[in-house]
């Protein structure tokens, strides 16, 4: 199975019905992730990075309309029943969400929450699932797991809670781990620990990881491939080294330039002026056009640029690929 992707998304689009009318959250994206590899989905809030993953796995809100093909281990999730999709979720895909303060149920012990996926999907008895929960809590580095298994979430710190969430996600040894900004709500030292923990577990278990983030530092550290999203579309994707060394899309260039530079302490932070377009009225042309420093010609405003190869698997969606030297990560 080394070459066939664990999750393969093709032409995925998500439209969410709202009071203001349909909002195009994801406007057609393709990406895939191989076993043991890490794909980073990068973008601003509202760029559709989380929604594309939630929709792919059947967790989109009820008002969402999802089209496209999503193959998990060869099974097209868009064609199977919701019941079948439910059974694949948790069993083959584990999720780690952004805020460990709210993603754990306050009235159940952490042990119960870690063990329930095993009971549901692997048919473990309550006792076996509990023993497994202790193992998992130990695996994610919770000290004295055998005692802590009966504690409630509020008795843990934020970082420890996120470890619990990771233990929950790994309960059935899934083929794919989806990490939706798992470090955003944590302080910097804890962030680093969580990133390391996931990288280590991935290495040991051979899990594929989709890491959703807006932290380019994390991307450089852990990802094999990166897809930069803007206004519901991928604007640039490819191997992390290639994208970081030679960013070709003006948006990626701007994003990389906007990273705080420790050497320039005291100087103003670099920003990208303007705001992303509204999902209720996506422009017909390049969505980045209004904020773009390049603004090549009238085509940019009226015609959607196709995703074209830059070199190898490095692709970009612009009529004016930038020739940058960028930087080494």
């Amino acid at each position, binding site marked *: 199975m080394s070459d066939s992707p664990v999750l393969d998304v093709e032409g995925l689009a998500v439209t969410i019905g709202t009071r203001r009318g349909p909002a195009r959250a994801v406007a057609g994206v393709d990406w895939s992730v191989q076993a043991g590899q890490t794909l980073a989905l990068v973008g601003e809030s509202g760029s559709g990075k989380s929604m594309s993953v939630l929709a792919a*796995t059947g*967790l989109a809100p009820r008002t969402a309309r999802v089209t496209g093909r999503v193959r998990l281990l060869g099974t097209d999730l868009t064609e199977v029943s919701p019941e079948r999709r*439910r*059974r*694949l*979720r*948790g*069993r083959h*895909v*584990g*999720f780690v*969400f952004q*805020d460990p303060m*709210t*993603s*754990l*149920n*306050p*009235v*159940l012990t952490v042990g119960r929450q870690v063990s*329930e*996926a095993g009971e*549901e*999907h692997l048919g473990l008895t309550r006792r076996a699932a509990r023993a497994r929960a202790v193992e998992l809590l130990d695996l994610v580095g919770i000290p004295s797991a055998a005692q802590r298994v009966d504690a*409630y979430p*509020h008795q843990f710190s934020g970082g420890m809670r996120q470890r619990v*969430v990771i233990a*929950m*996600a790994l*309960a059935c040894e899934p083929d794919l781990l989806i990490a939706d900004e798992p470090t955003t709500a944590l302080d910097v030292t804890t962030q680093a620990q969580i990133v390391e923990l996931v990288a280590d577990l991935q290495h040991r278990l051979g899990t594929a990881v989709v890491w959703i983030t807006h932290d380019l530092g994390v991307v450089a550290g852990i990802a094999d491939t990166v897809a930069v999203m803007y206004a519901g579309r991928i604007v640039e994707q490819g191997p992390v080294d290639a994208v970081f060394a030679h960013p070709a899309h003006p948006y990626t260039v701007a994003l990389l330039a906007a990273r705080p530079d420790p050497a320039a302490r005291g100087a103003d932070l670099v920003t990208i002026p303007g705001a992303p377009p509204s999902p209720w009225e996506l422009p017909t042309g390049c969505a980045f056009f209004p904020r773009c420093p390049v603004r090549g010609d009238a085509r940019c405003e009226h015609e959607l640029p196709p995703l074209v190869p830059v070199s190898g698997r490095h692709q970009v969606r612009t009529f004016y690929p930038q020739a940058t030297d960028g930087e080494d990560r």
Partner: protein
Amino acid sequence: MARFVIRRLLQSAVVLLGVTLVVFLLLQLVPGDPVRVALGTRFDPQTYEALRARAGLDQPLVVQYFDYLRRALTGDLGVSFRSGRPVTSIVLERLPATLSLAVTAVLFALLIAVPLGILSAVRSGSFIDHAARVFSQFGVSVPDFWMGIMGILLFAGVLGWLPPSGYVALTEDPARWASHVALPAATVGLVTAAILTRFIRSSMLEVLAEDYVRTAEAKGLRTRTVVRRHVLRNALIPVVTVVAVQLASLLGGVIVIEVLFAWPGIGRLTYDAVQARDYPVLQGAVLLVAALFLLMNLLVDILYARLDPRITVE
């Protein structure tokens, strides 16, 4: 835990003391002379003075109040102006009728409201949700006495299935008690069910939007498991308070319903005592209701600590 209960009981005692003072002072403001009303046509100045002296009404207010308190502490709430019987036993006699009506009504309400509230939230926007919302709108806006009268007309009058009014003690004849309690309990219960359905629905909707529910769904649990284990347990915590408040206010007696169905409970007793200016009985009834409220609140706090691990009673 024990320390918490003791502290709360002491606090309750202080509150009850305040209640006695307020009730005592309010009754002084009510127009009408209770002794005169009690004597009615048998009035003559000598008997009147004698009765006033016996009830201590010729003493200054401060003396009257402390006298009352001193005796209340020993469980003596005075003597009814009307019947001459001890208030404590009059009030306690009425408790079983009210208790059995209140508990039956709340159970009836829960039986309707819990499934309806849950379904309404889980299938929000569906037919059952709309039906539930119409039901609860109806239940909270239609006056209970009207519903009671309609109930009597239909089930006692037209169909003749149930007695229109009256009371049989549960200990005396359970079957006849049940037939008598059905109509008043259903009437009170429907109103309570309407309130609870709304509350459970909104509490469920709130919890359904929580991150940890998405986490549970992400684990691939069955919808039933997600609702039961993750949503319900959290959503029902605030419902406990509402149920307890409803139960406490029903225990205080549902005056209109008890009068309508000739149900000899605390509500009916309060009504009669007001009519007869029977102050000792009125005072006794109000004190009992206040005590029941405080007790329910204490029970809710203890229950909260059991339901929500984040809360400890210390």
